[in-house]
């Protein structure tokens, strides 16, 4: 059956404002000041172009991630090279694939070992929400154990979708204030996951 239209024209727009709450201005100060803002921007620019991913690839999405790394899509174009399995050295935890309850603590462990600033991307239905596996053994979304910055739907997402999610992460990283990681909101967020 031919489809009457091919694309939907009103999909959700992702807006970083939904996600990062910038540090509130303290009373009496007018923001971070020019220099600090510029520094933030430059650092943001550097960070977003040098996000080293830690592929926590457990299943199908990991295979699609291989395709993303491979020549056709070339993840390295974004500076996201040097895949490391050492959490200390990576900036972006990409959880790809089903995380079973047995695996949950390990995801958290890896997250804890990462150095700040760190970001988490849940790739695929299983990592984001459990997907079709609404069963006794599967964690229904990794945001139960670690805070997630970007969700990428799809089962598995196409490489384009993974790249799209990665660009969302880059937007987020680029806009993040240097102070965010010291803010109370961020601490409260981590606290809600029992971290620190």
């Amino acid at each position, binding site marked *: 059956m031919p489809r009457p239209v091919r694309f939907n024209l009103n999909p959700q727009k992702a807006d970083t404002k939904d996600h990062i709450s910038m540090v509130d201005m303290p009373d009496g100060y007018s923001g971070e000041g020019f220099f600090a803002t510029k520094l933030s921007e430059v650092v943001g620019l550097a960070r977003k*172009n040098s996000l080293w991913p830690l592929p926590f690839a457990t299943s199908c999405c990991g295979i699609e991630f291989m395709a993303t790394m491979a020549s056709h899509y070339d993840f390295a174009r974004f*500076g996201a090279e040097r895949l490391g399995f*050492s959490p200390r050295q990576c*900036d972006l935890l990409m959880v790809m694939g089903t995380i079973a309850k047995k695996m949950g603590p390990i995801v958290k462990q890896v997250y804890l070992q990462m150095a700040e600033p760190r970001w988490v991307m849940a790739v695929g239905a299983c990592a984001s929400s459990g997907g079709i596996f609404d069963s006794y053994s599967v964690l229904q979304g990794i945001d139960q154990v670690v805070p997630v910055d970007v969700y990428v739907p799809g089962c598995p997402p196409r490489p384009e979708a993974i790249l799209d999610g990665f660009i969302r992460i880059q937007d987020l990283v680029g806009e993040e204030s240097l102070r965010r990681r010291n803010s109370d909101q961020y601490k409260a967020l981590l606290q809600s996951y029992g971290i620190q």
Partner: protein
Amino acid sequence: MHVTLLAIDLALVIEKLILIAVIVTVSLLVAMYETYAERKIAAFIQDRRGPNRAGPFGILQPVADGLKLFMKEEIVPNLSNKFLFILGPGLAMLTAMMTSAVIPWSSHIELFGRTIHLQIADVNIGILYIFGVVSMGVYGVMIGGWASNNKFSLLAAIRGASQIISYELAMGISLIALLMLTQSLSLKTIVQQQQDGLYYVAYQPVGFLIFLICAFAECNRTPFDLSEAESELNFGYHQEYSSMKLGFYLFAEYVNMFISSAVMATLYFGGYDIPFVNDAAFGAHYGQNMLAILQGLSLFLKVVIFIFFFMWVRWTIPRFRYDQLMRLGWKGLIPLSLLNMLITGFIVLLRQYGWHFS
């Protein structure tokens, strides 16, 4: 000719300090762009495009990486020995940079009425000095790996240390064969000897090959990257490092590569000699300063070719297994270099007694 180390002359000190600063800066810059080149070459070899979003063609990529690493959180694992943990990358960087002191980067330039030799120190034990510093390079790996208090790191440290020690031997013996020909340990002299005749690679092809292989091993490059084999040991000895300490380790590897390329170019490929050109005549015609710049570029070009070769090999062949690596080192390269040394010595003797080839 040797410059006494203690003849202190203020102008000389300033000159040398500037030279050191320039060489260190250049080494770091080269190392930075080596990371970029590594990614790009890997990409081209693998039919990809490589980083192209940070700046035009991605040339700001190393800057972004560096800045990011600077701004990242420092993690010092609780259980590890903090002092050693910090010392490790520092040592790695230090030993990597120290070798550059004796390499003649070009002949001399004439500036402000002074003749400035573009070499930090022309000591008459240049090769031994390189050898000594290289043998020191193992500490960065060992201490870093041990202080991380991680079994993978420890395994990597032990692998790396034994590998570097083993390959140093073959490297040294292959150099001895070269030294029999040059009869000098000073790198400057060696370069000058090559200015007129053939490059030493023509006399010492086997020695060069052994030196090249050992250089790969000393730089921890594939196929000898056992100490940071990512599929086995998960980056090995620098696994626990984050932030700029990691940056130091990565940088040290690239600086090492740069310096060993320079050493190879100097020893076997005429150093700053411009190939197919009579340098002296050229200098007489265009002036010494012009010549020095071109010679520097010539050395640089040779170094770039070597660096490309390093990367090309890395992205082509699989790595060895630990025992195979040791077997190659001890049973392959050392006997071969000994043989090479003996044959060279024999020929040198024959020539001393007046026997000439054809």
